[in-house]
């Protein structure tokens, strides 16, 4: 199905099942420990051996020699895979560094060997016996150092630079200006389930049970890496214990399991050990961001400039932290620039809302600072610079844009008017209390997505698509879509996901999954409805699917009857035909935060959090709300604690486990409130939905930072806002 004209009224608009806050259909499995994650698949293939990955102890250089003798002689060892014996390997299209290093080493903890043994304990022990001699080389590890050498770098979709009007002159002439530099650190996905895979060969065919967000990409990259054709690979990932972008790609667990299984001639399972994950896999790259804002005295932005520096391995990509600045606020004279330095740290790549998450961390503090300079309320300043068209290309309008409504709704619900504009004015016992806000912005891309639907003689509808559910609620919203389209209750729908034998979907990433994948299911269901009416001899044009019946005119026939002779199967994809180019599809929101800062110790506690989101039709308010509170939680972590500490001498992230890399825990997070504005977006898809899982993180950290400023009068521009950055400038303890 081609989607190239705005969606008209369709069966989804009935909203009997879609749009309802239903419990997740896989909930009983997840809460009883019976949902099968990759490493637990004892059921799929017998005789599984255990693989353990050894990571490089240097960041850059070469392996001079490897002594495997002791490891080979250790009890239970079946095989050892290294670059020397693995045969010729390619590199995945989506990988920057190779997944098996040697002799050349590209980053710290790059996999250099896999030991396969009868048991986990034996594999782990033997891996410790491998003796590696390295010849280290000099690397670049400090983003601040080679900043001047950083080169312009865009992405496939976005140019490195954008310019409108004459920024320099306008900024110089502006009545009120801000020129400030902000930094965001390297961050880790730190999903709870480590990267894990079971690989089994049957002749030249590979079965891979893994934990992966993008099935088709990963089949392609496994094929490219192993040098086999895609049709030899069966990849399955029905349950994924979190990803946040860290499982968009094939990683070392998958490739090493496949190589290990080939070498040991047995199925092999591999999970990356937690302390390996932070340096072995990908992370969100650190940024240095310079924001320049110029405005008239009444608060109209006349110049807006955003430069961002990030680093990555050779041939890597920039963190696109200026993206939102191209679209969020009006202003006649504009300049954005992305610069990329070559660093020899582990591979930087997508993490929840790449680009906008760190970009909004900087931009939305700058907006707060500018509002203060102008003597304007920060909400009013943002409303004054709202735009309904792409400010760089005014001929493009936003498909929907309710930023102002989000800000106003949030202000009212949060009690913003009670906030003191001057910092240091509110006190609650030992706590300095502050309130802050930020806008939320994230693009809402759409991607071609396919599905197959089956109807059986019992009236059960089965959906098959390689779409994944990484905690986002895909199972449930896909079931809701099929139930609504076919007029059956939710319990008559079976959803099968994450299998490369199923039609290729959008996958989970970039907050494109929910809207694109359900639209693909919609398309397949339209075809199935046609098959049903054809089979039943009903008029497709006026047939109504409801309550397990198909009605047309005077006639009403049970849906199941259409499949009483043989199962009906329909397959289709949704293909997006340019509405997303003609218009800008984006989601908007507003974050409000109240913090308490201990007057003596500068300990920060978040007391209240509210998000207001305008993100198209909300397919399931319960799971969508969870996406937003989860993103708010990750944003709170980004604001206060999350930072991969770089050892700039040896080139690695020092705090590579879940104690060193702190993420929010229960005690850090208060009750969180989320409001979804009523919105449908007929330009987005037949579902009229958009993404929301990444919108929720964009702006949160800045709202926390602004609240801390409001509480203490201390402006911190370097994340995370830890006590040491506050203490020196804290007001005297009164």
């Amino acid at each position: 199905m081609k989607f190239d004209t705005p969606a008209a009224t369709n069966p989804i608009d009935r909203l009997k099942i879609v749009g309802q806050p239903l419990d997740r259909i896989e909930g009983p499995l997840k809460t009883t420990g019976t949902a099968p994650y990759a490493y637990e698949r004892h059921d799929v293939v017998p005789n599984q051996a255990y693989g353990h990955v050894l990571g490089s102890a240097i960041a850059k250089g070469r392996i001079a020699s490897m002594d495997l003798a002791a490891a080979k002689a250790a009890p239970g060892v079946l095989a050892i895979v290294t670059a020397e014996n693995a045969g010729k390997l390619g590199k995945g299209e989506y990988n920057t560094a190779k997944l098996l290093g040697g002799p050349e080493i590209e980053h710290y903890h790059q996999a250099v060997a896999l030991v396969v043994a009868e048991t986990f304990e034996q594999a782990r022990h033997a891996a410790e016996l491998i003796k590696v001699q390295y010849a280290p080389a000099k690397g670049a590890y400090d983003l601040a150092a080679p900043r001047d050498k950083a080169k312009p770098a865009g992405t496939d979709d976005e140019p490195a630079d954008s310019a409108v009007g004459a920024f320099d002159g306008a900024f110089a002439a502006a009545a009120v200006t801000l020129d400030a530099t902000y930094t965001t650190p390297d961050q880790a996905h730190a999903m709870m389930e480590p990267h894990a895979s079971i690989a089994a060969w049957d002749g030249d065919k590979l079965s891979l049970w893994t934990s992966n967000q993008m099935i088709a990409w990963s089949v392609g990259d496994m094929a490219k890496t192993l040098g086999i054709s895609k049709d030899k690979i069966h990849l399955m990932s029905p349950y994924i214990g979190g990803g946040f972008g860290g499982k968009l790609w094939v990683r070392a667990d998958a490739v090493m399991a496949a190589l290990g299984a080939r070498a040991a001639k047995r199925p092999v399972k591999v999970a990356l050990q937690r302390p390996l994950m932070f340096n072995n896999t990908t992370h969100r790259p650190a940024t240095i961001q310079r924001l320049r804002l110029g405005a008239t005295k009444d608060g109209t932005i006349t110049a807006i400039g955003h430069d961002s520096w990030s680093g990555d391995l050779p041939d890597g990509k920039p963190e696109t932290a200026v993206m939102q600045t191209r679209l969020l606020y009006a202003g006649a004279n504009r300049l954005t620039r992305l610069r990329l330095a070559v660093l020899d740290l582990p591979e930087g790549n997508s993490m929840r809302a790449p680009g906008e998450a760190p970009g909004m961390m900087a931009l939305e503090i700058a907006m707060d600072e500018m509002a203060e300079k102008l003597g304007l309320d920060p909400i009013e300043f943002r409303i004054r610079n709202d735009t309904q068209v792409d400010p760089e290309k005014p001929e493009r309008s936003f498909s929907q844009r309710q930023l102002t409504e989000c800000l106003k709704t949030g202000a009212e619900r949060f009690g913003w008017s009670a906030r003191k504009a001057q910092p240091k004015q509110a006190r609650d016992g030992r706590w300095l209390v502050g309130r802050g806000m930020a806008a939320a912005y994230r693009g809402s891309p759409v991607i071609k997505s396919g599905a197959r639907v089956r109807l059986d003689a019992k009236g059960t509808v089965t959906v098959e698509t390689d779409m994944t559910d990484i905690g986002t609620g895909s199972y449930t919203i896909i079931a809701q879509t099929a139930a609504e389209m076919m007029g059956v209750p939710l319990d008559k729908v079976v959803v099968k996901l994450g299998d490369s034998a199923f039609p290729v979907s959008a996958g989970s990433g970039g907050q494109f999954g929910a809207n694109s994948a359900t639209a693909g299911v919609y398309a397949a269901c339209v075809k199935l409805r046609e098959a049903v009416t054809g089979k039943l001899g009903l008029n497709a044009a006026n047939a109504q699917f409801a309550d397990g019946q198909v009605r047309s005119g005077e006639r009403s026939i049970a849906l199941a009857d259409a499949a009483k002779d043989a199962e009906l199967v329909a397959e289709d994809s949704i293909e997006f035909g340019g509405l997303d180019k003609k218009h800008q599809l984006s989601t908007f929101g507003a974050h409000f935060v109240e913090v308490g800062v201990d007057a003596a110790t500068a300990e920060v506690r978040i007391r209240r959090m509210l998000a207001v989101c305008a993100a198209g039709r909300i397919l399931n308010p319960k799971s969508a709300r969870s996406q937003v509170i989860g993103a708010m939680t990750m944003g709170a972590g980004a604001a206060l604690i999350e930072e991969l500490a770089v050892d700039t001498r040896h080139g690695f992230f020092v705090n590579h486990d879940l104690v060193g890399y702190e993420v929010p825990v229960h005690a850090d997070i208060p009750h969180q409130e989320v409001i979804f504005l009523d919105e449908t977006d007929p330009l987005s898809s037949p579902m009229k939905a958009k993404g929301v899982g990444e919108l929720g993180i964009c702006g949160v950290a800045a709202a926390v930072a602004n609240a801390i400023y409001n509480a203490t009068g201390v402006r911190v521009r370097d994340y995370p806002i830890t006590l040491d950055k506050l203490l020196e400038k804290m007001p005297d303890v009164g």
Partner: protein
Amino acid sequence: MATPRENDVKRRTLMAATVATAAVGAVAARAGAQTTPPAASPSSPAGAAAPTLKVSFTVNGKPRDLDLDPRTTLLDALREGLHLGGTKKGCDHGQCGACTVILDGRRINSCLTLAVMHQGGEITTIEGLGTPEKLHPMQAAFVKHDGYQCGYCTPGQICSAVAVLEEIEAGIPSHVTADLNAKPALDDAELRERMSGNICRCGAYSNIVEAIGEVAGRKA
């Protein structure tokens, strides 16, 4: 750098040798495993079979006898030996709580203890609390309040939550309990503090606390 590693290896070798004399000729077969026990591989050096120790404990009311590599954690005994995959390995270092089980009435990180240390122990895992058809009230509350997303930390959260309510009931104080002589309150601060060893990276905390609160209210 090399010295501690070598010492460590020697210590391990010594330990393995000592154990081998106690459990002659045993292979790494694990009682209760449903798949075929690993066949002796031609590439395994002869006589290098892993030394094992026997241990018996009760899991979810069922007596279990295992013959384990003594290095096996309780977590791996459950997951790999008994194929009870509900108990999750998130970090293997006691940092995340995904492996939480209830051992002799107290919650424990099962990755931080060796299985052979628990002769005669009574273990309850997530599978022992309820089934998809018959959910434990805490499991049902997690579903109702959407107290999870990816589901990987969920079994640990639920095992912890069940034990937390019992700890409060038993009057065991926490870091945030103001009065050590009074029964701890069942408020959000207590729940959040006590649940803070269970990380949820999806960030379902707000919903999890509501789910626990509902179950606690029902109990009270």
